């Protein structure tokens, strides 16, 4: 048995999904967090599957993530629909409910956020609503885990008895009523043979925006004319055009459902609180300085205070462990090559990356707080006009902010953008937002080469990345992606206190992710690098790495980087492994240099301030890692274009590194 979770954006679908299945999907106080379907089994019911879907306001397919939901409910034909309605915003949420009812699928309404309604003194007469809507209604609070068992019971029962919604006629007598019934009459046989619910088909014909449904109905010219005629008649009589008339019908019905059944709270605490917070955060003068201040503070705290402190702690732990192991292996008289594998390979490689775990987790913590509190939606509101100047909309800022964490989810988050043009542009821009995997590179290099200005160099790199992104956007906006940005219609949810559990789960997820990467991909890359730098083609251990297999490969591409100031084969090799995972740049340099004093010392030997700066700019801008490139290919639906993006970035990186190298030459000499 399969249930679909359907509801408006930000109504709590994913929160409910996590409660039902015990999984840990991303929840956030922002409309449009979920962009793909996700299925799981209800705890304790091994044969009952639920599918979490992106939020929609109406069964239409404007943006890609809405298409996911529309296609799922229309094509997969779930056994039941669990329609989640945000009880604090009941009228707009029920608008979708009415459309779902037309689908003739067993359905239960889960009235969510009842905790907020109750605490504000509002009430909902559940029985009356259920009666008037013709479907079971269960009050729940997904976040507080209230009413979930009852919901499962009712949903299971409704679906096993195949109880179709009892009411589906929402029109009161009048022109629109006559029109719908006339259309139903014409298309009845077509709808039946195409297996499309009759009322739903009629609505779609009136709205006329779902070409797929209309063509599946296979109507002939006469019938289409007949239908159009009755719609035009209705418009004349009604005074409203077809879309407005239909929306009006639905909202009128909703008002009649709510009248007497829903007693609204006079003032909602959450709303009052949001108003107060917004007086500051979206204040006419303060909003933009606050936004930049918040971002700076986040990076400052991450790199300099909390993250740094935890990292130093972890680093000394790893160093101590490495020293102990070294001594132990030496005392034990372990074979030199085996010892080199452990000390020069694993510790120098994976170890050099591992200590960045706290910094990355701290950064994700702040990004998730931005999202869970509801501030992210305000950033979109505040920055919309600025983004429009480069041809985007406020919504594009969300993938970009997520991009500071990781490019993969950021690229996926672009699905909420409703125009293809905005999506493509945003996808091209997110890699310029420096991802957290590059932090080890920046940190190690600035510590080695600019110890007095480390923080400045780090922040400068982030800003430089953004500036190049803006430049690229302006360029695209005036060349291949000419056109008008899409409308920006977005709900601003009330501020909420982030749930500790959600944040903790997210951090655990990110930490797990990082550790998995460190011990799989980076570990493997480390082994390869160690192997190829320790042996020559005849499998003899080399005297000096200069003779190794890797040196000969690295030397092949090194000349490309000579004009940028870092033509050493070890550096070019590290850039190649950086394509696998950005942290590998550091782990590779760690293995290939194996200087006493670690990778920091080695970098100080290998680079000058000038070539170091040029290298940092190159790593900031060059191709995203394999995982990100494949995500880009997926989202652009073309391997070629995805690879094109990677090449475009490499070229951009080369050019900017070249410029920086030469300007720095003039200044530092």
């Amino acid at each position: 048995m399969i249930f679909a979770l359907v509801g408006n954006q930000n109504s709590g679908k994913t929160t409910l999904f996590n409660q039902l299945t015990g999984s840990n999907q991303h929840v956030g106080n922002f409309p449009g967090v979920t962009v793909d379907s996700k299925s799981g089994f209800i705890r304790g019911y091994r044969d009952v599957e639920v599918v979490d879907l992106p939020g929609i306001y109406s069964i239409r397919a404007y943006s890609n993530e809405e298409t996911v939901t529309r296609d799922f409910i229309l094509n997969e034909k779930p056994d039941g629909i669990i329609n989640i309605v945000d009880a604090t915003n009941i009228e707009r949420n029920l608008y979708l409910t009415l459309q779902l009812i037309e689908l003739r699928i067993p359905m239960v309404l889960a009235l969510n956020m009842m905790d907020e309604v109750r605490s504000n003194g509002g009430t909902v007469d559940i029985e009356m609503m259920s009666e008037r809507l013709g479907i079971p209604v269960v009050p729940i609070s997904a976040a507080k885990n209230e009413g979930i068992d009852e919901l499962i019971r009712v949903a299971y029962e409704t679906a096993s008895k195949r109880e179709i919604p009892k009411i589906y006629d929402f029109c009161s007598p009048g022109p629109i009523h006559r029109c719908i019934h006339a259309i139903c009459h014409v298309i009845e046989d077509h709808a039946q043979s195409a297996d499309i619910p009759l009322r739903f088909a009629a609505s779609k014909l009136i709205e006329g925006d779902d070409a797929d449904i209309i063509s599946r109905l296979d109507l002939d010219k006469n019938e289409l004319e007949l239908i159009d005629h009755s719609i035009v008649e209705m418009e004349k009589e009604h005074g409203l055009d077809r879309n407005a008339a239909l929306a009006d019908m639905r909202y009128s019905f909703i008002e009649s459902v709510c009248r007497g059944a829903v007693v609204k709270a006079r003032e909602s605490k959450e709303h009052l609180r949001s108003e107060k917070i917004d007086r500051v955060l979206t204040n006419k003068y303060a909003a933009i300085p606050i936004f930049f201040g918040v971002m700076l503070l986040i990076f400052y705290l991450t790199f300099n205070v909390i993250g740094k402190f935890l990292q130093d702690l972890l680093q000394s732990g790893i160093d101590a462990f490495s020293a102990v192991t070294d001594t132990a292996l030496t005392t034990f008289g372990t074979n030199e090559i085996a010892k080199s594998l452990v000390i020069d390979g694993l510790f120098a490689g994976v170890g050099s990356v591992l200590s960045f775990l706290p910094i990355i987790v701290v950064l994700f913590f702040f990004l998730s707080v931005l999202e869970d509190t509801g501030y992210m939606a305000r950033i979109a509101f505040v920055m919309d006009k600025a983004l429009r100047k480069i041809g985007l909309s406020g919504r594009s800022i969300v993938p970009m902010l997520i991009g500071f964490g990781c490019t993969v989810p950021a690229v996926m988050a672009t699905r909420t953008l409703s125009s293809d043009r905005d999506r493509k542009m945003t996808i091209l821009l997110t890699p310029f937002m420096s991802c957290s995997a590059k932090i080890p590179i920046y940190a190690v290099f600035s510590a080695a080469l600019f110890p007095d200005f480390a923080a400045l160099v780090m922040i400068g790199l982030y800003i430089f990345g953004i500036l190049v992104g803006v430049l690229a956007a302006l360029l695209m906006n005036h060349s291949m992606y000419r056109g008008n940005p899409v409308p920006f219609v977005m709900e601003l949810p009330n501020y909420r206190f982030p749930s500790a559990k959600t944040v903790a789960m997210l951090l655990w997820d990110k930490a797990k992710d990082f550790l998995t990467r460190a011990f799989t991909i980076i570990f493997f890359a480390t082994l390869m690098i160690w192997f190829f730098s320790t042996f020559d083609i005849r499998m003899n251990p080399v005297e000096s790495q200069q003779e190794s297999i890797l040196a000969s490969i690295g030397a092949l591409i090194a000349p490309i980087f000579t004009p940028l100031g870092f033509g050493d084969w070890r550096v070019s090799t590290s850039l190649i492994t950086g394509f696998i995972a950005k942290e590998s740049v550091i782990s590779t340099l760690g293995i290939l240099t194996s200087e006493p004093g670690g990778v920091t010392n080695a970098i100080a030997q290998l680079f000058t301030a000038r070539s170091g700066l040029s290298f940092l700019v190159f790593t900031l801008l060059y191709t995203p890692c394999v995982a990100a490139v494949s995500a880009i290919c997926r989202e652009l639906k073309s391997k070629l274009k995805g690879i094109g993006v990677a090449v475009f970035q490499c070229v951009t990186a080369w050019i900017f590194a070249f410029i920086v190298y030469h300007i720095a030459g003039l200044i530092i000499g």
Partner: protein
Amino acid sequence: MTLDKLPIGSAGIITAVGGEGALRCRLLDMGLIPRTKVKVVKTAPLGDPVEIRLRDYELTIRLADAALIEISPVTDNNKDSAGGTAE
């Protein structure tokens, strides 16, 4: 009068929703239909978009899109009554 001209803090009742295609459907879906009461809450720091309140929730739309919505202004003493349709 159109919604973009409504001063901050005041309310109006929608009389017609213009525009076309996807944008218009989105506006209607969000509950911006004739007879609905809306209130302008604030404009963004750069002057655009605006934040409006209707049917007990906040929505942000751009001035250019707000200009598509015809309203008749109402005098409104009750601060937080921008919910539902005017009777």
